[in-house]
């Protein structure tokens, strides 16, 4: 059964010309993450208590989905398939449903990323203030090379994101949870040194 003979880049259908829609450069999506060690549950002890506290703040368990996913990502750095299964279980949802939600929101990682995750805004207000130069400097200084790739030493992953809501302080970046304003190419290496 043939797949599709797309028009236009048909030969490229399976190769470089293809794209899964407009792939955002270096999105932290795509690809199945793999867990090699047996899966250890996230929701026990303190985190389970936190989840149970969340249940009191919303009338449905389903509404606790986004907060629960944040708890998983805080614990493990990313959200794996078994973790999706666990979240589904504790919230009485199906894994498919949870996965549909996880893939909608760009801040949830579905595969492991570097120890430090860097998001740089390149939308127009920052773009006209040199954001792309900051992005290039970050890719160079971290050793990542490409957006979405993790540096060889596992230290950094850099992605390009949309407006971070600090347009007057161009160019802002997020390193993990640290929101750093006014980044220029010159400041990049100094900033990176703070993150081992």
């Amino acid at each position, binding site marked *: 059964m043939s797949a599709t003979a797309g028009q236009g880049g048909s030969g490229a259908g399976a190769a470089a010309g293809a794209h899964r829609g407009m792939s955002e450069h270096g999105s932290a999506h795509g690809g199945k993450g793999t867990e090699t060690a047996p899966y250890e549950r996230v929701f026990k002890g303190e985190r389970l208590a936190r989840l149970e506290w969340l249940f009191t703040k919303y009338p449905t368990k389903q509404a606790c989905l*986004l907060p629960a996913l944040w708890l998983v990502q805080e614990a493990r750095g990313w959200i794996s398939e078994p973790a999706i299964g666990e979240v589904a279980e504790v919230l009485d949802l199906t894994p498919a449903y949870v996965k549909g*939600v996880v893939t909608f929101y760009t801040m949830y990682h579905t595969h492991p990323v570097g120890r430090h995750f860097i998001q740089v805004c390149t939308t127009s207000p920052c*773009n006209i203030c040199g954001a792309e130069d900051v992005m290039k400097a970050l890719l160079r200084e971290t050793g990542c090379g490409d957006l979405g790739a993790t540096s060889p030493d596992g230290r950094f992953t850099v992605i390009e*994101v949309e*407006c971070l809501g600090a*347009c007057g302080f*161009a160019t802002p970046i997020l390193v993990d949870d640290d*929101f750093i304003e006014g980044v220029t190419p010159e400041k990049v290496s100094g900033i990176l040194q703070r993150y081992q």
Partner: protein
Amino acid sequence: MGYPHPSHPKENPVLSKHFGDPEARTYDGWVKRGGYEGLKKILRLTPEAVIEEIKTSGLRGRGGAGFPTGLKWSLMPKADGRPHYLVCNADESEPGTFKDREIMRWTPHGLLEGCAIAAYAIGAERCYIYIRGEFTDPYKIMDQAVEEATARGALGDNAFGSGKRIEVILHRGAGAYICGEETAMLNSIEGKRGNPRIKPPYPAQAGLFGMPTTINNVETLAAVPHVVMRGGEWYKGLSLSNPKSTGTKLISVCGHIQRPGNYEVTMGTPMKELIYDMCGGMRPGRTLKAVIPGGSSVPIMSAAEAEDCLLDYEGVVAKGSMLGSAGMIVMDDTTDMVYQIWRLARFYAHESCAQCTQCREGTAWTTRILERILAGKGKQEHFQLLLDLSDNMTGKTICVLSDSCAAPIVSGIQKFRQEFEAYIQGAREPALAAV
């Protein structure tokens, strides 16, 4: 104040008076600065009286739509046993806009007070503040403020001993511009994909969890305590041009400007004064080329239009654009308009939720066409194609994200056609590698 710059005399610092003042963040610091008096005051009034005051003030939604706030609150049904909800929209993701972040990180208690007053007025006991996931510092600051306010009795089961219950819950977003659309936000809080809903039913009838809900922007709610304390008439009086636009507006000025920041101006202030006086004008040797006044989802204004424009809802409409969220992106003559329009189209294509055909496919296709133009492969037919697509993407979808993608394209071709022509005719070097 034009935070982070010193306040300019032509500003009218109401919400921004304490930007940059770390003490204002604390409960005591805020009370010292007059905070929570408004809440105490309204707890002795009826909700109807509070709504009347807001109606008198002429306060309009500051998130972009400009819908009269008092009217919005009055659309909530009378008490019928169903829980009412207040949702505070702190998802600020409109390119060019960065005011709500400042309100949250400098005057968190001001926002909480506004939320509490609004919740009381609409009969809600629970208020969810939806903070975008990237706002890590504002989240921490707001979290701290909620804890403090609850510990000190301003929020909780018995707000200031009134017997009324007002609970504020912070809900963290996870990276989706579309969740700033009010019904998408409701879906996101409910633990779903952030898809906008069809209206009707309107949130006031069936909103969060199917219950009557009001959604207000951060800036709108932050203005509420001031209206309550100083009176609706006072707020109404803050109007330099059109009486339908009252109060002050935080304008987030960014881009090619000497002093980018948030400037609080009285409605009706001339844009020229903002750009040249308050913000210090262009960088040395540069001239103004274009202004996108309301966040990127509004038509681009030419320099001439901007310099003749008054900053209120009607004034900007008169010049062919919209005040929107007042995220003002200033572009000087070094700007490659085609490149920036492409970058904006790419933004919308990335953020489309995928429900409506026109948005899902149209935003991506327009982005691709603009890429080809920038790569030196543009054709004359692309003009008509872009305009056709923009027409298809306007007024035909569940929400206005696709209209927002069309706006810069249509206005860009209309006012900066020669820049497109330069790429198409090969007069300008391609800005992108061939795709």
